[in-house]
């Protein structure tokens, strides 16, 4: 059997407040198991506060979480011991639910730094200003991003939908292997959703896997997943095919929470 892109084994996570002087919070992820083969797209759905973003953050290496148990393998290698930038360079990409505004840092300059950091890690030559610009233009077309936005500071004054486009633009530029999309569809109007979904679909391929976190069936009409998982109370309580999403749309999450295994 080939090595999966991502393998999560019995992952337990809690908030680590040691750096902030607070007390450690209770467990948020309570034993996640998930296998994402190369080339597949899996959707993760689940009620608010169930731990979806926490999972995405832990996979991307965000500080402030403590893994109390379990492991995560990325292409068979231990992911959790790698610094966030190392993960990004190795091909992990998180499209943030709430992209950060960084006024004063030019979006284009930032994107070029990021692309070149990733390229040099992969043994590719760094792009000069002209090469980068033409690559950026091409990818901006893909997500229909106006050039004017690229001239601003990173996400500075971007609308919710513009921020999401910028995330997918970054994804297209960085050419990752594992894409974690955290509610990329929320806040998008119908046309924007179609554009973004088109951009994401264009990036689908046998060497790339995606984890789509979403609340809405609508996104999955455009980006059809291979599997759907339901995360509730820090665990995956149900997995199924793409029809599971529709079932959730009809019935909500209540029936699943009822069948949740008692906490151990």
């Amino acid at each position, binding site marked *: 059997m080939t090595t999966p892109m991502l393998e999560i084994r019995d992952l337990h996570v809690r908030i680590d407040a040691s750096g902030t002087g607070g007390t450690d919070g209770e467990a948020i992820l309570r034993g996640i198991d998930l296998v994402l083969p190369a080339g597949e797209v899996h959707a993760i759905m689940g009620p608010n506060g169930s731990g979806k973003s926490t999972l995405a953050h832990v996979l*991307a*290496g*965000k*500080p402030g979480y403590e893994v109390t148990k379990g492991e995560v393998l990325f292409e068979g290698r231990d992911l959790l011991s790698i*610094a*966030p*930038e190392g*993960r*990004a*360079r190795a091909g992990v*990409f*998180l499209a*943030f639910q709430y*992209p*950060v505004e*960084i*006024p*004063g*840092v030019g979006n284009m300059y*930032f994107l070029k*730094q*990021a692309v070149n*950091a*990733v390229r040099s*890690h992969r043994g590719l030559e760094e792009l000069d200003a002209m090469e980068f610009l033409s690559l950026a233009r091409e990818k901006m077309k893909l997500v229909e991003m106006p050039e004017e936005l690229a001239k601003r*500071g*990173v996400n500075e004054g971007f609308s919710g939908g513009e921020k999401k486009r910028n995330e997918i633009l*970054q994804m297209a530029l*960085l050419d990752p292997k594992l894409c974690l999309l955290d509610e990329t569809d929320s806040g998008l109007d119908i046309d924007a959703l179609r554009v973004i979904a088109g951009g994401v679909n264009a990036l689908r391929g046998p060497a790339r896997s995606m984890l789509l976190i979403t609340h809405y069936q609508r996104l999955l009409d455009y980006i059809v997943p291979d599997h759907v998982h339901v995360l509730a109370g820090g665990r995956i309580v149900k997995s199924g095919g793409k029809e599971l999403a529709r079932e959730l749309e009809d019935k909500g999450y209540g029936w699943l929470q009822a069948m949740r295994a008692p906490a151990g």
Partner: protein
Amino acid sequence: MSTFSPERHWAEAFAAAADVRAGEPPWLEATRKGALARFAELGVPARKHEEWKYTRAERIANHPWQPAAAASIGAEALDELELPVAAAPRLVFVNGRLAPDLSRLDGLPPGVVATNAGALLPRDGAWLEPRLDVPVPFTDRAFAALAVAMAPDAAVVRIPRDVSVEATLWVLFVSAPGEDVAASPRLIVEAEPGAGLRLVELHASLGASRQLHNALTEIVAGAAASVEHLRLQLEGAGTTHVAHVHARVARDARYASRTIALGAELSRLDLVVTLAEEGAEATLDGLYVAAQTQHHESRTCVDHQRPHGTSRELYKGVLAGRARGVFSGKVLVRKDAQKSSAEQKNENLLLSRDAEVDSKPQLEIEADDVRCTHGSTIGQLDEDALFYLRARGLDAPAARALLVRGFLGEILAGVEDEALRESLEARALATLSRAGVAAGGAP
């Protein structure tokens, strides 16, 4: 207690420097003596003095500084500054005295005066006389009085009525190496009504000798004139830089001040902007970057004296290592200054646990129909922003440097000359990276 008396020390130094003043008219000698007496009378401000609460004046004054002698430097010394001055019209002062061979003034419109006070004295003494005295807002400032007494000369820039100078004019105050030396660089600028001037005032030292630079600048923007004033404090690591800057802004005139303090071990800027007539407008932008044990104090005062004045102020500081920053910004709106609008902001970025900053906004509003806002922040680099950048492949030092650049950018963006802007940014980042923060990432 040491028995050193700064007042006695400077009285002796003044007497000993009589030859420097040989040939000056009697009124100037009287002006200087008056200023020296004023210095003795005011004395070195004690710590309980509110204005000197954060920077110890004794630390500056209780030292046997010797007045800087005339010195000459080669043209290659200017290259050492690594600033884009090669093609700029410029006055270069070394140890407070004009260096004609390093200055170049071709290309300035006819009628523009850019020279030294010494050269003007014989023909324009009457114009100079009031301007060489202690500027009015500084009559109670001991160091400003001392500068008037001791400055061997002054740079003078005068733009005639309705003349706009296309090029940016540089006035460079450079000090030659020399231990325990005190220089008094002085600058007098007048833009007559309707005139336009862009000015860069630079203070730099060659080498890192222990020196005191006691600078004094007075600027007048006549009615409807426009003066853009970029003041660069890029002194060497051994320098104590004390500066008094006053700008008087007349009716419908505009004064744009941008002060950038990156150098010196200890520096203190006292900037007073007087909106003296109706419709005067001023912007005050400032940046102070300090690392290791550097200390920067920026004191600003915007004095709205007449109606319909507008001021906008943004001072930003980055402090690393064990550095200390102080911002004290006063906005004064007098009874007679109805319909004034004043905005003040101070933002500070602390890059280390041991860095410190004090931010003291002060509003004194005597008029009732005014619009005033002020705000002040002290913070660290945003953790979420850092993670965002790292999640895109930037390593932690590069991510930090990029965020610091973003913070500096707001003030540096106003420096129009791209080469200069990049040079200033590189210097600021170098200062910080020497302190072990924000390393890398610079282009």
